[in-house]
C-alpha cells in the first residue's frame, strides 16, 4: 500500500515536471527560437514591447489550447474505455473526425461560412451525431460494443462520410484548398477567442467525468454488483458517454482530427496509478497535455522551417501503440 502510494507520488511529480518543461520548450522553440528569460518575461507580462517577448506571447494561445486539448482527448478516451470496457475506444477509431469534417465542408460550400465560431458549431454537431450513430451501431446485439464491432463501425462511418466529404469538396477548388488544412489536426490555429468560445464545453465535460468517477469505479466491478449497490447503470453509462463525446467533439471542432491521444494516455497512466478513476482522471489530464504539447513540438522540430501538424505526429506515434494493445488483448475478448 505504502509503496504504491509512493509510486503514485513520484509519477505525479514527474508528470507535472514533464508538463512544465514541455510547455516552456514549446513557448521558446519555433521558427524563431527565444531564450528562457524572455519566456519568463512574457508569462509575467513584463517587457511586452520587446520583439522576442511578443513572439512568445503569440505562442501562448497555442500552448494553452494544446494543454486543454490533450487533457480533453485523454479524459474522453478514458470515459469511452470505461463505459464500453473496451481497450481501444478512441475518437479517431470511432470516425468522429470525419463527421465533423463533413459538416464543416458542407457549411463552407453551401452556406459560405467563414467565421470561427460557425465552424466550431458545425463541427461540434457533426462530431456529436457521428459519435452517437457509430456507438449505437456497435452496441446493437447482445455482446454490446466489442472492440472489433466498435472499430469496424467507426471505419464504416469514416469511409461513408469521407466519400460524402469528397462529393461536396471536389467540384470546388476554393473549398478544397481551405479544407485540406482543416482535415489534419493541428493545435496551431487556435486563437484566444476560439478557446474562450469552447471553454464551457470543456469544463462541462471535465466536471461530468469527475462527478461520475466513483460510480464508474463501482461499475467496473460488473453490472450486477453495481446495481445491487444502488447505482443506475444505464444512466451512468449514458452520462459518461456524453462526457466523452462532448470533450472530443469540442476538441475536434477547434483542432481537427487529432488521433490516438485518447487511446494511448489511459493505457500509459493505468500502469502507474492503477485502475481507480479518481486518480486516473487527473493523471490522464497531466499526461495527455504533455503528450500533445510534445507531439506538437516534435512536429515543429522535424518540420522546420514549417511544421508537421500534430495530428500527423500523434497518428504516427499512436498507431503502433494501438497495434501493440490489440496484440496484447486476448483473442476471445475481441
Amino acid at each position, binding site marked *: 500500500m505504502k509503496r504504491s502510494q509512493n509510486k503514485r507520488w513520484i509519477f505525479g511529480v514527474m508528470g507535472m515536471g514533464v508538463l512544465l518543461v514541455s510547455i516552456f520548450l514549446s513557448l521558446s522553440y519555433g521558427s524563431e527560437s527565444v531564450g528562457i528569460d524572455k519566456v519568463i518575461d512574457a508569462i509575467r507580462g513584463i517587457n511586452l514591447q520587446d520583439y522576442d517577448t511578443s513572439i512568445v506571447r503569440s505562442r501562448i494561445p497555442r500552448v494553452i489550447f494544446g494543454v486543454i486539448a490533450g487533457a480533453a482527448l485523454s479524459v474522453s478516451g478514458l470515459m469511452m474505455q470505461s463505459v464500453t470496457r473496451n481497450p481501444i475506444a478512441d475518437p479517431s*477509431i470511432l470516425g468522429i473526425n470525419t463527421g465533423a469534417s463533413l459538416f464543416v465542408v458542407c457549411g463552407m460550400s453551401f452556406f459560405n461560412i467563414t467565421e470561427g465560431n460557425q465552424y466550431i458549431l458545425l463541427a461540434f454537431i457533426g462530431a456529436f451525431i457521428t459519435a452517437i450513430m457509430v456507438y449505437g451501431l456497435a452496441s446493437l446485439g447482445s455482446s454490446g460494443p466489442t472492440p472489433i*464491432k466498435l472499430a469496424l463501425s467507426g471505419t464504416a462511418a469514416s469511409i*461513408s462520410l469521407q466519400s460524402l466529404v*469528397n462529393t461536396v469538396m471536389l467540384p470546388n477548388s476554393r473549398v478544397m484548398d481551405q479544407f*485540406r488544412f482543416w*482535415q489534419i489536426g493541428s493545435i496551431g490555429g487556435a486563437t484566444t477567442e476560439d478557446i474562450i468560445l469552447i471553454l464551457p464545453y470543456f469544463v462541462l465535460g471535465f466536471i461530468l467525468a469527475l462527478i461520475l468517477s466513483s460510480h464508474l469505479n463501482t461499475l467496473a466491478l460488473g453490472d450486477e454488483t453495481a446495481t445491487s449497490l444502488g447505482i443506475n447503470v444505464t444512466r451512468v453509462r449514458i452520462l459518461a458517454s456524453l462526457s466523452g463525446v462532448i470533450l472530443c467533439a469540442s476538441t475536434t471542432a477547434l483542432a481537427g482530427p487529432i488521433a490516438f491521444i485518447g487511446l494511448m494516455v489511459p493505457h500509459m497512466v493505468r500502469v502507474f496509478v492503477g485502475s481507480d478513476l479518481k486518480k486516473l482522471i487527473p493523471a490522464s489530464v497531466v499526461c495527455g497535455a504533455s503528450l500533445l504539447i510534445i507531439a506538437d513540438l516534435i512536429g515543429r522540430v522535424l518540420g522546420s522551417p514549417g511544421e508537421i501538424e500534430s495530428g500527423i505526429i500523434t497518428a504516427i506515434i499512436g498507431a503502433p501503440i494501438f497495434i501493440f494493445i*490489440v496484440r496484447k488483448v486476448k*483473442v476471445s475478448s475481441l
Partner: protein
Amino acid sequence: MIYDGFKKRKKRYILTSIVLLIVLLALVIFSMCYGNTVYSIKTVVETLMGDTTSRASFTIINLRLPRMIAGVFCGFAFGIAGNTFQKLLGNPLASPDIIGVTSGSSVAAVFGILFLNLSSVSVSILSVISGLLVATIIFLLSKKGGYSNSRLILIGIGMQAFLNAMISWMILKASEYDVSGALRWLSGSLNGVGIEDVIILVLVVIPISIVIISLRDGLDVLQLGSSHALTLGLNVNINRVLMIILSQLLIAFSTVTTGPIASVAFLSGPIASKISGRGSSNMLTSGLTGAILVMGADLIGQYAFSVRYPVGVITGILGAPYLIFLLMRYSKKGV
C-alpha cells in the same frame, strides 16, 4: 440428390456469369459511343479496326478506349481481390480497402507521384512492393498467440490510420497544384489514364486472374474453416499466402492506374454471392460485378450531375449504405 443440387448451382453460376458479361458489354459499348459527341457503333468499330482517318479517332483511341479498359480491368481486379480477402478471412468486412492493404499501395504511389516524379511503371513496382510489405506486416503482427481474424482486422485498421497520416502529410507538403491531382487520384478516378498505363494493367490482370480463378477450388474448401481444409489435405498456409500475394498484386497495379476506387473491392463479392448463390467461391462473378460497378459508377459520375465526379466518389456513396447494413446485421448476430 446432392449431385442434382450441385448441378443446379453450377448451371445458375454459368447463367449468372453470362448475364453479367452481357451487362458489362452493354456498358462498354455505351461508354465508347456516348460522350460529348455521340458516335455510332459503326464508327467506333471502324476506328478500332484501324481506320484513323475519321475525326472520331482521337477521341475514341486516346480518350475513351483507355478509360474503358482501365474501368473494366481495375473493376475486375478489385472485385476478385476483394472477394479473395473476404473469403479467405471468412468475413465480408475484411476487404482490402477496410483493413489497410489498399492504403499500403496508395502510400507508395503518392510518394512516387508527388516526390520522386517517377514514371507510372516505377510507381507500380514501388506500390506493389509496399502493398505486399504492409500486408505481410499485418499478417505477421496478427499471428501472435494463434491466428485470429478479428485481430487481423483490428491491426489492419490501426495500420490504415498510420498510413493515412503519412499520406495526409505528403499531400500537405506538396505544392497546391499537385494536391488537387493527388486528391482526385486518392478518391479513385479514371481521368487521364493513358494507353501505356492500360497495357501494363491488362498484362498483369489477365494472367493473375486466371491463376486465382483456377486456385479457387482450394478456397472452396478453406471456406469450410481451416480445420476442415486441413483434414481434406489442403496446405492451408501456402494456399493462403499465395492467394493473398496474387490479390495484392492486382490491387497494387489497379491502384496505381486509377487510385483506390472506394468500396468496389468490398461490394463485389457480397453482391456476386447474392445473385449467383453461395455454392462456389464466385471468383469470376465477383470480378465481373466489380467491372460493372466501376463502369456504371463512372457513367453516373460523368453524366448524371452538372459537375463531373471521379468514379470513386460514386462507388463510395454506393458502398456506404451497404456497409452500414452489413454492420447492423453483424452486430445483431454478435461476434
